[in-house]
């Protein structure tokens, strides 16, 4: 549908086949604090400033999920 648009409701999305998988999420600024100690950066201080573990360890949709 070149140039066109389509709107999906949550019901539309949930009705489509889903896929579940484990995924690691990592902030681009993981271990930023070490960089800041060398020289101040302009990256967000509150996010990813830790030297510690990446942020979360989620998985996405699960099959047969209840209606949203």
């Amino acid at each position, binding site marked *: 549908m070149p140039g066109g648009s389509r709107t999906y409701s949550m019901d539309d999305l949930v009705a489509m086949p889903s896929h579940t998988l484990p995924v690691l999420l990592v902030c681009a600024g993981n271990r930023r604090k070490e960089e800041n100690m060398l020289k*101040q*950066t302009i990256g967000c201080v509150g996010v990813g400033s830790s*030297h510690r573990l990446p942020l979360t360890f989620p*998985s996405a949709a699960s099959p047969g999920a209840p209606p949203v």
Partner: protein
Amino acid sequence: MPLWRLLHAVGITEPTPEAQYVCFDGPQQELPKGADGSYGTSIPMHVALDPACDVLVAYQQNGARLEPDHGFPVRVIIPGWIGGRMVKWLCKIVVSATPSDNFYHFNDNRIMPPEIDAERAAAEGWWYKPEYIFNELNINSAIGAPAHGEVLCVQRSASSQPFTLRGYAYTGGGRAITRVEVSVDDGCSWALAQLQRPEKPTKYGRQWCWVFWQLTLDARALLLAPTLRCRAWDAGNNTQPRDITWNVMGMGNNCHFTVHVHQQRDAEGNVSLRFEHPTEPGALKGGWMGNTAGGWKVRGLEGTQANHCSYSRILLCTACARGATRRDGGSARGYRRSRACACRRACCCGTLQRQKVLHD
């Protein structure tokens, strides 16, 4: 649900000159800058359409609806990429011949050369140079145990005293972490850690999760250790650099994760080791890099090279420190004479130039 299904549903099954990118936009008025205050970015169409890349339009996490903080009701998930491309509170998906024109697509999540500060970046148009975008994660690892501030009492009487180091490692692009190594002599020699892989690869062979590593040493092996370092390797044989490379957004830092070891001796002569991480999270002030922005000084790469060699000198045996001469098989024509360590420590097996630095 897979993004490629949604694209197929609207008739897009392969990249074309008009369909080179998939742009994602969050809600308007969310952020202070840009035309409408939305956060938006884009990914190449070939990534979006590739089932092996597992790009999701996700509405659940851990079997429950997304939390507001994690993008309720719908967000993007791009395994092996930085979080900054995984737009939360997703409102709009646009197929385009060009990358997203959102303010934050250009003015965030970039890794520029270290000489480019905020002023030069703005004045010279660095934010808009496509080659500096940060998309796929780079390889990284860190030490979790020993923790910052942990103290290990080294027993003199025990025949052996096992001490276990632990940490994590990850990389981008679905590549496997193939090994993690630990050094207790400032990177002169490395020991292989054991890997634990909590998740299996996908059916396409991609690995989207981190691994955990551990290595058990005799505590007495740490008595001569100036630092503990870890570095990971992946299936592309990428590894981590020894030195940090500063960049204006402070992104992608993956240098050796280095824990300093401080030896302490009490009145009875008992020896203990205190471990100090480079930094502590958030506003906590501990760490050998200090707690003042810009407060930690290195003299460029030359400076850190020099530091490295001076550390090595501390570790040299007496014979080594004298610069003893020995036969050294380093030439295709046979033995050649060179000034080299006689102690055969791993840190003395570097190049001739390095030996020269060590002994001059």
